[in-house]
């Protein structure tokens, strides 16, 4: 019975993460996008904490804490401020419409489920289903990145992609802590990098719309 519960709850969280990834796809305002991303990180934190509990792996609580504090609060907060300061809280220009994007998202989830479940037939059921969810989150993150032109929303897409990786890493039972911390750490570095970039882009173009950059296509004249 306890086993069933453990399984169901982890399923709930992992599935929830995929759902929130879908919500990221159709946000058309930057503030809303950042809020949904914060929710994404919170769901991830719960999922990781639950894994820590059922795997009896206390070090995973650290990962959960990092996800909650850093990705759930600090980064969305900071991005909020950037958006405010740059006054870019208007509509997000998507490259593809919402409808086709959602359809593509569904196709990606179906793809990852088919691939992962078939491949991991011999692994334990919890890990394999979590991996399928994790791959879905990774692919949906990629989809967010390619369907947006705005630098801030691309960053959000990238971070949701990394959340998927953390989900996969925690589903792989007993994976050494090194990797989780490094993932969190790399997100931090990535964030700093991006922060610098955003400001530099602003300095140069008065916009963070990456289309402004498209004029500079190297030697294509």
């Amino acid at each position: 019975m306890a086993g069933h519960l453990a399984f169901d709850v982890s399923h709930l969280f992992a599935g929830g993460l995929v759902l929130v990834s879908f919500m990221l796809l159709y946000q058309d305002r930057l503030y809303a996008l950042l809020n949904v991303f914060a929710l994404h990180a919170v769901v991830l934190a719960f999922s990781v904490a639950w894994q820590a509990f059922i795997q009896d792996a206390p070090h995973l609580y650290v990962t959960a804490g990092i996800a909650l504090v850093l990705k759930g609060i600090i980064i969305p907060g900071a991005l909020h401020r950037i958006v405010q300061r740059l006054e870019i809280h208007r509509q997000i220009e998507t490259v593809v419409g919402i409808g086709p994007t959602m359809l593509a998202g569904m196709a990606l989830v179906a793809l990852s489920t088919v691939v992962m479940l078939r491949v991991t037939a011999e692994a334990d059921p919890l890990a394999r289903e979590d991996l399928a969810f994790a791959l879905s989150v990774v692919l949906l993150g990629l989809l967010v990145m390619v369907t947006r032109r705005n630098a801030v929303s691309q960053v959000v897409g990238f971070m949701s992609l990394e959340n998927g990786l953390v989900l996969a890493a925690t589903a792989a039972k007993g994976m050494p802590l090194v990797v989780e911390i490094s993932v969190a750490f790399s997100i931090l570095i990535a964030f700093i990098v991006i922060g610098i970039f955003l400001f530099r882009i602003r300095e140069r173009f008065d916009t963070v719309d990456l289309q402004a950059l498209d004029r500079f296509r190297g030697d294509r004249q």
Partner: protein
Amino acid sequence: MNGLAYYAVAAVLGVPLVSAAVLAVLPGYRLTARLNLLAALITMLASASLFFLPRPEPGQYLFIDDLNIVFIVLSTFVAFTTSVFSASYIAHELETGKLTPTYLRFYHAMYQLLMFGMNLALLANNIGLMWVAIELATLTTVLMVGIYRTAEALEAAWKYFILGSVGIALALFGTILVYMAARPIVGEGTDAMVWTVLMGRVATFDPALLNLAFVFLLLGYGTKVGLAPLHAWLPDAHAEGPTPISAVLSGLLLNVALYAVLRFKLLLAANPSALAPGPLMMIMGLGSVIFAGFMLYRRRDIKRMFAYSSIEHMGVVAFAFGLGGPLANFAGLLHMVMHSLTKSAIFFTVGHITQVKGTQKIADIRGLTVTHPLLGWGLVLGVVAIAGLPPLGIFMSEFLVVSSTFARQPLLAIPLVAGLLIAFGALFLRLNGLAFGEPTGSTQPVKASYIPMYVHLALVFTAGIYLPPMLVLWFQHIAGLLG
């Protein structure tokens, strides 16, 4: 157990890390450029000493074996010569005001941090640690590509950052899958991520998981190698960053990523029921050669042109390793070394050329052999080498790749040779205008450091005529290991 080797490993990793911290705070161009050079020299000597010292037992995080030592020695050598070139290049950038002293500190710190990242990736005995190190190297190069803060540099850095991150994310997913495959056999914990443990027991891993993992790893690290469909970041990053970074990117970082792919290829090859990793690498490699060959014709920017040539040559190397077998592996290894030496020499030359002419546009640079004979002829030699003319080193390695392809897969030799010839034509077409003809632009003498460039070219030239038997034996031994 020999303690000396531990010190050497500690130096290879510690010196760049410590000097990165020191260089970040020290002011002054002369002092920092020299320190940078000194740090690179010590790192190189330490890595060369690894070659002679008895090997320490592989640990959980670091190890030295016959394969990675070649990469480390090559890497630290080119890093050293590049730091010599960088000193004179940066002096000019400061004079013209393209870099401010603050950015110079930042540049030197990042340079050493990049060296640390690459050395760590090569020495890592742990697939997780290797991933972290490659990510570190990527981030430092992103920052350096954007250092000029022009619109083009920012676009290049952003593109590199996004594509590199996606690649690195896919590679992490692959790494996790490898751990998943190892866990039931090796057990939970760090051991299931240690190369030496994995290699010993991979034969009983779940092949389906390994296959999927390899696809992710090939796509992920393949992005960093710059293989054809995933190469989009490479030309921009090479063209817009400081030229020493172009030299290090082409000469070293691409190799490090390729090393990662090779390691995982070895892992897959040791499992009898997993898919053969060779054909995938061959397809991507061949695609890169042909694609880059055609793209070379449309280049108007000199650094961008040589960036495409790097894609071509990494394609040749990936193809050779994908083909496998003692001869092709030997050729691939030799080609990789020759390409690193030649391409960095070319970028040294190009760096000074673009500084003196004040432009990167091929059309605006003419008659170099007249205005700047040493640079001009250096470029001619470099292009002759990179295009694969006899008797230089790249001719020999390309000849070996092609002849082993004829022996094993004759049909594939046709597109390969076609790709090489197409690239050859493009390079000479451009070289003609660059080096000869009526001179244009500034004819002022240039304060260049010719030594690194000509040392590299001399090495490539020597390798084309005479390879020391010891080196041949060593490479043959590694080629055998690569299977």
